[in-house]
């Protein structure tokens, strides 16, 4: 129901100032002040009070453990991706805000400082022109850009969003960026002092799995792991290639892991778990065990999807599973999430999803929620108390949220 404003009909507001040059824009337009003269004084206490302009909301400095970051790579406009901050537990106001993350960006939050980090790529003319790779730093409370670090060389690795191409190390003093040109390397950034420290080649290998205080592993194309140790100054100290520990041809490991404490759990395409202990600078290849029984294996139960595995500090692993799997079904998604006791290497239960799942995440609080990016690219939230679907957060909250990061 609209009552056209009489005032604006008598006075055309689009008053232009002649001449060239940049016009100074009024910060508070004059017509608002004029309008104020037309307002009646309050007539009753029930009347709604005028609201101040401008008003911009802010968020807590520490995000609740029921929130997560939905990384929207936005396939249909890849240059314009974003990270959406989502409260999965609240009854409403689930969408808390967004920060930009375009052109195959990477994202990670700090758990020690109230900061968010995005590694992304810009072109001066959006799809062409001069390339600039940056780390953009946002504060958590305001989602304001508080710093930017230029990454040299135009070599930032661009791929469908992965957690392990942007990682924090050395008690979160360093931020490590995976590069791919197709030469593979890692750029080390002093994220406290906002400066680039060094670049380290990791030939034939990829990604960053933090190990100990100043080391990281990278998975290699022959089924081995390259270990890189950094000096206290963030320079290369030592590199070592561990022996081949998985069969690259028959049953490669996913790049996604569950991580409980310093133990990482790598699922394999055919349904094993390879444990790797990242407690010290030199990772230790640990046990390998199967997610599936012989019978389930015969039925073709396999992990599949994008983020196929996640974990909770309470010691549970969650794996997105599909039946009738085959070599090539490893990104198909799944109809169930299987819950495992990581220590006991035993399945606790199966959660049958209401909708086909593509990516899963579990919030890190004492009362955790399972969040599933479903086949419509909405986020289904399951209460892990009873495994029931609580709500679906959609309505274009994100176009293609392939990666979900639980608040640490």
């Amino acid at each position: 129901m609209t009552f056209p404003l009489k005032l604006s009909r008598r006075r055309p507001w689009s008053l232009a100032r002649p001449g060239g040059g940049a016009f100074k824009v009024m910060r508070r337009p004059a017509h608002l002040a004029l309008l104020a003269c037309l307002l009646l004084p309050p007539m009753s206490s029930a009347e709604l009070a005028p609201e101040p302009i401008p008003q911009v909301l802010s968020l807590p400095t520490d995000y609740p453990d029921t929130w997560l970051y939905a990384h929207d790579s936005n396939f249909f406009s890849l240059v314009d991706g974003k990270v959406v901050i989502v409260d999965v537990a609240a009854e409403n106001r689930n969408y808390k805000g967004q920060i930009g993350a375009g052109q195959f960006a990477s994202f990670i939050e700090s758990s020690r400082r109230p900061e968010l980090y995005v590694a992304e790529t810009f072109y001066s003319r959006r799809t062409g022109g001069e390339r600039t790779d940056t780390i953009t730093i946002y504060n958590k409370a305001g989602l304001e850009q508080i710093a930017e670090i230029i990454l040299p060389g135009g070599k930032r690795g661009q791929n469908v969003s992965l957690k392990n191409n942007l990682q924090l190390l050395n008690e979160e003093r360093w931020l490590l960026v995976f590069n791919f040109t197709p030469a593979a390397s890692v750029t080390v950034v002093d994220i406290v002092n906002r400066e680039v420290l060094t670049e380290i080649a990791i030939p034939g290998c990829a990604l960053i799995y933090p190990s100990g205080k100043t080391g990281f592993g990278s998975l290699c194309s022959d089924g081995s792991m390259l270990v890189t140790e950094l000096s206290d100054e963030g320079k290369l100290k030592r590199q070592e290639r561990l022996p081949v520990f998985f069969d690259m041809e028959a049953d490669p490991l996913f790049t996604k892991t569950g991580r409980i404490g310093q133990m990482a759990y790598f699922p394999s395409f055919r349904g094993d778990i390879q444990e790797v202990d990242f407690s010290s600078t030199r990772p230790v290849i640990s046990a390998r065990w199967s997610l599936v029984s012989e019978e389930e294996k015969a039925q073709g139960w396999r992990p599949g999807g994008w983020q196929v595995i996640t974990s909770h500090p309470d010691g549970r692993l969650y794996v997105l599973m599909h039946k009738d799997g085959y070599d090539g079904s490893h990104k198909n998604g799944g109809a169930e999430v299987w819950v495992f006791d990581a220590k006991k290497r035993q399945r606790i239960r199966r959660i049958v999803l209401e909708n086909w799942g593509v990516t899963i995440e579990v919030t890190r609080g004492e009362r955790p929620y399972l969040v599933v990016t479903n086949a419509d690219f909405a986020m289904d939230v399951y209460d892990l108390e009873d495994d029931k679907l609580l709500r679906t957060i959609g309505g274009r909250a994100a176009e293609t949220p392939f990666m979900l990061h639980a608040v640490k």
Partner: protein
Amino acid sequence: MNYFDHITEIISRKFAQRSSRRGLLTALGTALLGGSVLPLLPVARAAADNGYPGVAAQTTGNPEDPGDPTSCDYWRHCAIDGFLCSCCGGKQYACPPGTEMSPMTWIGTCRNPADGKDYIISYNDCCGRTSCSRCLCNRNEADKPLYRAFSNNDTNWCLGTESTVYSCSTAVIIGVAIKK
């Protein structure tokens, strides 16, 4: 910014073809605005459905400000066009974190069904982040063409902000209008 002209109209049309729910709501809204204000009804509307699957309904918490700020039918939205900030991390009167509220705006006059008064509503846009894309809402009754700029909703009103990139729109009360 207020330029999402046909989309919601189309969406509601398509929706109406399917279920006529929205037509019902509009009729209900008209009845409410027509005179006898039944305070419970707007709340019932809000709780029922905002018309945007995947977006949870809200209330203002104030019975004097009835309805669902995530609904296109919310009384303040009588002349809004764009993505509703209430669905985007903001509120009906506030921008989402990280955006900047435009100091320039176009203005509508909407009747509050709770007190029957006409309020002047300022549709300030929130700028500097990409399209929120949620809760696309358009109501064109007072829209004039582009050459009547401050009555036009095809214009990007992210003006006077650091960036002209549009994210969502608010509906801020700036006062009560003089009765015509």
